[in-house]
């Protein structure tokens, strides 16, 4: 049923994409706020706090784009979307930007007619097992029962991994992450598999996290990034370069604390171009010259966002790993601001 609804809506999405184009920036300005699609709740990435304020790593991207376009990081209307509704919400124009830990894949980019503007988190699928099971590698999991969320790419990755290694497994289908935690703790399955960031967040909530190990194997590539509709390249550029500005800001040492000071002008021409004291990059995007200053002031540069929401000092405690700057051996690499 899910699939037929999905395919049906995608068919219409092709038609709709023709109508909705090329004026997203004007619409956002006229509306005075950015409609940003987020998850209905994922630890560290997007969640409402006790006052109903959305906060998280993906939310930070929404706020940065809103700050770049409108000068106000709070001018965002957060639209909670589910795995089923996210793509149609974007295709139909209900949201301007989807920042919902969505994996960048060929078919989503090409067939669904979306434009991924970059990667804000390099994730990958991993396994968690109880320590007492004595398993140290995913290659020893032959015959295991595996808790797996249905209808996601993780399900397909799991099948591929076990098939290619000539191993058998018994899937225990699960609807939500919360349910998976209960099932796994109750011993309904030997192994829980999902994205490594999710495993870390889940493990952190256990009474005794040290009784569980996340296995070293990562069996899939899950580059998560924000995306926009095909057909409005100007808007896509704004989202792409806002994300790049956050990444480049970390590389160049621009933080939310010193950005106002650096915006007065520095000896580094790239910083000057990015922050608008030199050149007219903002005008090329159709934005004010201080667009990047606003975006960085919203929640800090990429590193600050990471540390505040999912980094090692938070309950989730993720290391930078692949998400370090290219200068530190990671994959984050912003094209130059020139």
């Amino acid at each position, binding site marked *: 049923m899910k699939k037929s609804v999905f395919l049906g809506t995608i068919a219409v999405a092709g038609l709709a994409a023709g109508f909705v184009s090329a004026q997203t920036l004007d619409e956002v300005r006229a509306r005075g706020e950015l409609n940003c699609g987020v998850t209905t709740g994922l630890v560290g990435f997007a969640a409402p706090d006790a006052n109903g304020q959305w906060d998280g790593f993906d939310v930070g991207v929404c706020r940065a784009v809103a700050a770049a376009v409108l000068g106000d990081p709070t001018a965002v209307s957060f639209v909670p979307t589910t795995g089923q509704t996210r793509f149609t919400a974007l295709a139909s124009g209900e949201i301007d930007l989807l920042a919902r830990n969505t994996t960048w894949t060929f078919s989503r980019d090409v067939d669904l007619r979306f434009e991924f503007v970059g990667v804000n988190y390099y994730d990958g699928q991993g396994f968690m097992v109880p320590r007492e099971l004595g398993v140290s590698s995913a290659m020893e999991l032959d015959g295991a029962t595996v808790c797996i969320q249905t209808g996601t790419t993780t399900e397909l990755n799991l099948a591929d991994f076990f098939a290619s290694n000539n191993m058998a497994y018994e899937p225990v289908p699960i609807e939500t992450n919360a349910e998976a935690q209960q099932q796994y703790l109750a011993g309904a399955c030997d192994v829980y598999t999902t994205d490594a960031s999710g495993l870390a967040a889940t493990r952190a909530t256990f009474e005794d996290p040290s009784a569980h190990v996340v296995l070293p194997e990562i069996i899939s590539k899950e580059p998560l990034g924000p995306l926009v509709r095909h057909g409005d390249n100007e808007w896509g550029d704004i989202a792409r370069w806002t994300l790049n500005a956050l990444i480049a800001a970390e590389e160049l040492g621009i933080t939310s604390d010193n950005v106002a000071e650096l915006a007065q002008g520095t000896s580094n021409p790239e910083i000057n171009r990015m922050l608008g004291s030199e050149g007219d990059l903002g005008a090329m995007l159709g934005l004010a010259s201080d667009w990047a200053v606003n975006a960085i002031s919203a929640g800090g540069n990429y590193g600050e966002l990471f540390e505040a929401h999912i980094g090692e000092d938070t*309950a989730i405690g993720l290391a930078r790993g692949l998400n370090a700057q290219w200068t530190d051996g990671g994959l984050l690499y912003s094209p130059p601001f020139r």
Partner: protein
Amino acid sequence: MSDTHAQSVQFVRDTMIPEQDAPITEKGAVKWVRENLFSSWLNAILTIVSILVVYWVLAHILPWMLGGIWVAESLTQCREIRDASGIGYDVACWAVISDRWHQLLFGFYPSGLYWRPILTLIVFGAAIAPILFSGVSRKMLLFSIAAPFLAYWLLWGGSIWGPVAAALGFVIGWAIMTYGEGVLGALASIIAALVVPILYWLFVAGALAGVLQDFLPIGIENIRSDQFGGFMLALIIGVSGIVLSLPLGILLALGRQSDLFIINKCSVIFIEVIRGVPLIVWLFTASLLLNYFLPPEVSFDLMLRVIIMVTLFASAYIAEVVRGGLAALPRGQYEGADSLGLDYWQSMRLIILPQALKISIPGIVSTFIGLFKDTTLVVFIGLLDPIGLSNAIRADSDWNGIYWELFIFIGLCFFIFCFSMSRYSQWLERKLTTGHH
């Protein structure tokens, strides 16, 4: 006689023996236990086993529930408090409820304005009283008619003139219906009563509200639909669906019984199509497909779309329940109504429907209870109903890992509403019992 026996009988009682208590095994609790729990060996064994099972379940659940921790800032802190207090077993962390109860009840509605939904609930209670209980003054019905507009204004806020202008459309329709018949004739007045208000809403109402607002600005802070959530959302969707689906369902049931070909077939197709497809598909239609058919600049409120879909869905079920009631009436009732010279609407209103609806009460109420619980399905289209909020709360790193506490609280709230609906329906059935069986 007494003389004869005076010698043969030594003692003759001339007063009554005072009544004695029944033997201890034949009265009160002991008797009840003997008769109901230990009447045979098999029953005695079953009783003991049942008691042991109940004890086992309670012994596990009660310490967990009653020993729960109410004041903490996160799940981790809950665990620290528990470990520090030296309790050897797991206890509930109710602190998540005390931290987030307002969100589970009101969603993201601004906390300073909670009085508005609460007042709306009171207005709703007052408005529904004359409909539910015959003892309440009939004049209250006027208030019931005004209540939906008042409730809308209280919940969403904004200018008071919007709802007033909208209500005026109904007044216009009613006036044409009542006074237009002499001037226009019966059929023309019915058509005019439908068309004129629609034209009024489309072209006049908005401007009128604007003018009145300029002239006499009365308004309260506007709250957008995306701030609504939790039980408030479930109640708004559920109650709107219930209130709107009953009249629609009755009309559909009458349409299905009608001899007029087009009305009959339209009703049948509508009912069968709606009932033939799961609610979740209709919700996806409301949330996804409708977006494509509307121009992008028209943002048709998602909550409104869901309310319309839920109403249509429930009305199809109500129609079938009411049709059952209509079919259960003996043919003589219809013929009796005809023989009195009543026209169709009079016979329906005075003779047929009161009886048919009475028969249908259990079915109608169980449809309503089902509808109210089905509102939790909106979680799949990204609306933050109580279940959706429980996911959102768990996504906060403070409360990630909490599970049963939220579901128990949500379940309890739903139970209160559904159980009271069910008790009301039983009361109503008893009150309306006029059968001659």
